[in-house]
């Protein structure tokens, strides 16, 4: 489906994510006998190239996750022009902030900071360089309609695949 362009958007996480939007789902340290071994790359090394709007997400926003350079590239954030690539990262959402990604510059820009955090918090907890404005806005909290969508139909769909997670988040 992704190969034909039938998927518009996809969420990808990463054990490590770097400033060029490379993601690492394999492990830390030198490959293959890594210090930490994660599950593996799953479909990332395909979908990241072919789905137009990939939303990177990771709740933990810390220097160990958002690193200058990933230890293993499960899927690269950008590709040379001769590589067939119609998809890629659009943004990165964490528990503290939202970034947008510019593939031509290969850099993230801070879009907004979630309530409870400051620009300095984001600078302190991000291991890679990114662009930002000193007067970066606060993230807009979801309205009632969006919340009821997430807690209703979306939660029901998620529960089918991830019941333990759904119980934890939605009760």
């Amino acid at each position, binding site marked *: 489906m992704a190969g034909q362009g039938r998927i518009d958007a996809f969420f990808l996480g990463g054990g490590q994510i770097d400033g060029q939007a490379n993601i690492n789902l*394999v492990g830390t340290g030198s490959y*293959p006998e890594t210090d930490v*071994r*994660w599950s593996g790359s799953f*479909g990332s*090394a395909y979908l990241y190239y072919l789905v137009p709007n990939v939303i990177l997400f990771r709740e933990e926003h810390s220097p160990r996750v958002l690193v200058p350079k990933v230890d293993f590239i499960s*899927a690269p954030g950008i*590709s*040379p022009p001769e590589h067939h690539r119609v998809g890629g990262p659009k943004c990165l959402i964490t528990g503290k902030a939202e970034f947008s990604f510019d593939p031509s510059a290969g850099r993230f820009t801070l879009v907004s900071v979630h309530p409870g955090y400051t620009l300095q918090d984001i600078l302190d907890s991000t291991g890679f360089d990114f662009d930002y404005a000193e007067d970066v806005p606060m993230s807009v909290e979801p309205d009632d309609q969006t919340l009821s969508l997430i807690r209703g139909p979306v939660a029901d769909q998620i529960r089918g695949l991830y019941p333990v997670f759904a119980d934890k988040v939605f009760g």
Partner: protein
Amino acid sequence: MQQTKIVTVDELAAMVPDNCNLAIIKDDSSAPSEAVRALVRRGVKGLHLLTVPTGGYPSDLLIGADCVSSVETSGVSLAEFGPAPRFGKAVKSGKIKIKDATCPAVYAALQAGEKGLPFIPLRGVLGSDIAANRDDWKVIDNPFADEGNSDPVLLLAAIRPDVALIHVEKADRFGNVWVGREKELATVAHAAHCTLVTAEEIVDDDLMASTTTAAGCLSSMYIDAIAVAKNGAWPVGLGDLYDRDTEHLRSYAAAARDDDAFDVYLQRYVFAAPARASA
């Protein structure tokens, strides 16, 4: 063509040779847990495990019981119960050789295998460390690209597993196997040289006789042997028949983090437990 044999789970396990390439399908579709416990009991060694495209409980168990020498996978995990501890430990220590893949590459290579093709191209993957570490994959310039345009494409060698081990809801006494909506079981069985099946039940009706059942059926010509294994995916779930055993998987995930606790697990749930549903 040999007729499909109806055997016990332990007899089925005896048909898996040491050092063979063994394909197992992801837990959501077909977890051959009972057959894998029988494999551990028979002391199979040196398996080259292919997970289609990912592995879960059965893969972690096989690796932890020292039955595996290499793994080709797009990921091994216990899903909501966390990482696969025996897999992680074996890779980190270098005890098993790892061939990291990505899900569509596993499917594409098996599709080449089922068609008898030597290789198949796949989009994506270029520039990743997955590709950089796979010297069995190649990149060519797309020969159909417009004149003067460079279009590098990844090529994957076809995969034909020596043995595919699958678990299904039902089979018939003629050797036909119901796969329902899990079409990847057919892909793997077509690609494999030998397909061994455990089924919740073996029915008397010919599943190929009606279009309703035939549409979701794998022909006996691909099936070498079938054994009845009631609740054979446990503690993983199976389709609409039964859910996963959440408590057991949680306790496995905890036990598998510790060498001694894992040995206790093996003694209690594998070695002390005869194939419960052997026909």
